[in-house]
């Protein structure tokens, strides 16, 4: 079992505010991890810092991906190395069609021009997998998309780009019940023994469809507890107040 991603004592701030206060996490190839945690605990910050968002400043620790520190790498270098982030709030790019964007992204990630035919076949098969119709690819990226459409578009990008390590930041929020199942089925199909998956979610229902081996609870910029799927069930049943109270007692 090879280590894919190792987060070592990671600290990060935005402006003057420290948000990540020493996060440790190891994800091996073939593993699915889930991160849960109260609003504002730093989950999206962690995701952004992993992807290299320049808005955040890393103040300590390291991120080692495929045996190499990525701290000095720009977001595009990280993407080319196989890292992918499905955003909690995908950004609209008016005037740029999803199909054009995806084509450039695929070429960039692969480091070579993918023949148009091959690209189209791949795109269409992934669109089928995610049950989006053909017109969807002609729309402008995230521009006027509904909440659920945005999340589906993120998954379409992941499906086409085939990353080694994917971070899904609240991909379930905004999806209706059927869409959640579709997306979950797709993710399960895409998951493979060489790949790692990090799911950020508030709800057990996603984890019923995509079964993680490990669940972590992020509280105030640190992983407060790690466990198996039962930890997610516990949180779902009790809520964070009780969890935090218990944490304080321990």
């Amino acid at each position, binding site marked *: 079992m090879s280590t894919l991603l190792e987060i070592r004592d990671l600290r990060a701030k935005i402006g003057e505010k420290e948000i990540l206060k020493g996060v440790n996490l190891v994800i091996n190839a073939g593993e699915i991890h889930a991160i849960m945690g109260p609003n504002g605990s730093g989950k999206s910050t962690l995701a952004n810092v992993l*992807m*290299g*968002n*320049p*808005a955040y400043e890393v103040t300590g620790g390291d991120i080692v991906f495929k045996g190499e520190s990525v701290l000095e790498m*720009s*977001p*595009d270098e*990280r*993407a*080319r190395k196989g890292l*992918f*982030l499905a*955003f909690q709030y*995908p*950004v609209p*790019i*008016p*005037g*740029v069609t999803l199909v054009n*964007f995806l084509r*450039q*992204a695929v070429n*960039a*990630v692969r480091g070579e021009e993918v023949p148009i035919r091959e690209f189209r076949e791949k795109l269409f098969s992934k669109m089928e997998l995610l049950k989006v119709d053909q017109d969807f690819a002609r729309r*402008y*990226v995230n521009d006027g998309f509904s909440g659920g459409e945005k999340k589906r578009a993120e998954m379409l*990008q992941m499906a086409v*780009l085939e990353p080694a390590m994917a971070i899904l930041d609240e991909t379930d929020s905004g999806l209706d019940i059927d869409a959640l199942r579709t997306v979950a089925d797709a993710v399960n199909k895409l998951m493979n023994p060489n790949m790692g998956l990090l799911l950020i979610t508030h709800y057990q229902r996603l984890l019923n469809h995509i079964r993680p081996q490990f669940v972590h609870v992020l509280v105030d910029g640190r992983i407060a507890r790690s466990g198996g799927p039962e930890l997610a069930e516990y949180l779902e049943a009790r809520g964070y107040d009780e969890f935090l109270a218990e944490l304080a007692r321990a």
Partner: protein
Amino acid sequence: MTTAPEAIVGEYKWGFYDPEEALFKANKGLSREIVNVISDMKGEPQWMREFRLRALEIFWQKQDPPWGSPQLKEIDFDDIHYYVKATDRDERSWDDVPEYIRRTFDRLGIPEAERKYLAGVGAQYDSEVVYHNIREDLEKQGVIFLGTDQALKEHEDIFKEYFGTVVPPGDNRYAALNSAVWSGGSFIYVPKGVKVEIPLQAYFRINTQNMGQFERTLIIADEGSQVHYVEGCTAPIYRSDSLHSAVVEIIVKRGARVRYTTIQNWSNNVYNLVTKRAVAYQDAVMEWVDGNLGSKLTMKYPSVYLMEPGAHGEILSLAFAGKGQHQDAGGKIVHAASNTTSTIISKSLSKDGGRTSYRGLLKVYEGCENVKSTVRCDALLLDEESRSDTYPTMEIDAPDVHIQHEAYVSKLGEDQLFYLMSRGLSEEAAAKMIVNGFVEPIVKELPMEYAVELNRLIELQMEGAVG
């Protein structure tokens, strides 16, 4: 001319030029004699000579508009050639075109473009139309597509009826100047009910140092007809300033439809001061698609006068200002009748300290009912040094008017860049993608080869814009 061509090409991608082989080049400066010489050379009728001389008097009396850029003061009207004739007659076929001119066109890709798309090419080289080719089916339909000089010779009646009626010499200083020394340009007449399916195109170039180019275009779309005219330019760079001051007049008669598309990429020393105006009658549609890149200073506000009920005017304007450039562009719509509608969409980009201004006028005359207009201006700043301003003017003298006006200035978004980069795009590729998306609403209105060219020009302008 001491600068080596290679050095110039290095600075400016489309900056190749030909040795000046013009057959006739008027002395620098402006005088009644020069105007008379121009009229003599062209063998014009007396009324045109008088028109020119009257216009010259007006030019001498007129001042620059008070809101005009201070850069206008830098133009030295005595240091300009007002007439250059490259070959002594219009050419009908490509083989007849002189070798050095063909070479230039080859580099611009004209013959290939023609094979693929063109119905006719009216390519303006220096001040004369040297190459003109109309497909037979157009001729059969009675469509006239000629160089403006030739049209005056061959179709004087119709020419005289419309020439100078939409933009009279007294309209503004540069219209007066153009009226005095105009040369070249395109003339189009589309007869009643004729729909020209393929865009008519002309390429323009300035090729003589210090030469003012004063082309004059006149388009008449008769009742129920339809035409799309496209002009595009890439100009060679020269060491001293050049003046381009064109006048375009368009008459869109009842139920007719005209679209006029311009893509300009003047070199960075050109003053581009153009008066473009159309009048649209009952149920007529006039559309300006105006893309301005390059030049030192552009002042250009295509306008539409909606004269009768049911008329619709549309202006799509795109401007890109780089270092040392000022694009002062926009549009004017005048609602002079009830039940008229209009749309203005302006998109501007500035980088490296470049400046874009949107200047617009929306006027609704008293007594006009049920008038609708939408104005939308978007400016995108690519860095901190660049600048964009909006100067919208509304003169609304009627109560039953529905107007929507929106203006946005935004900076190249960090979150958009990060999003695209997280998908593997380099920062430069991401910025280009955002910019291409920003201009897409205009680009998608262009014929395919122009859309490709425009995207390429913008990418060139963008290079080095980030990182």
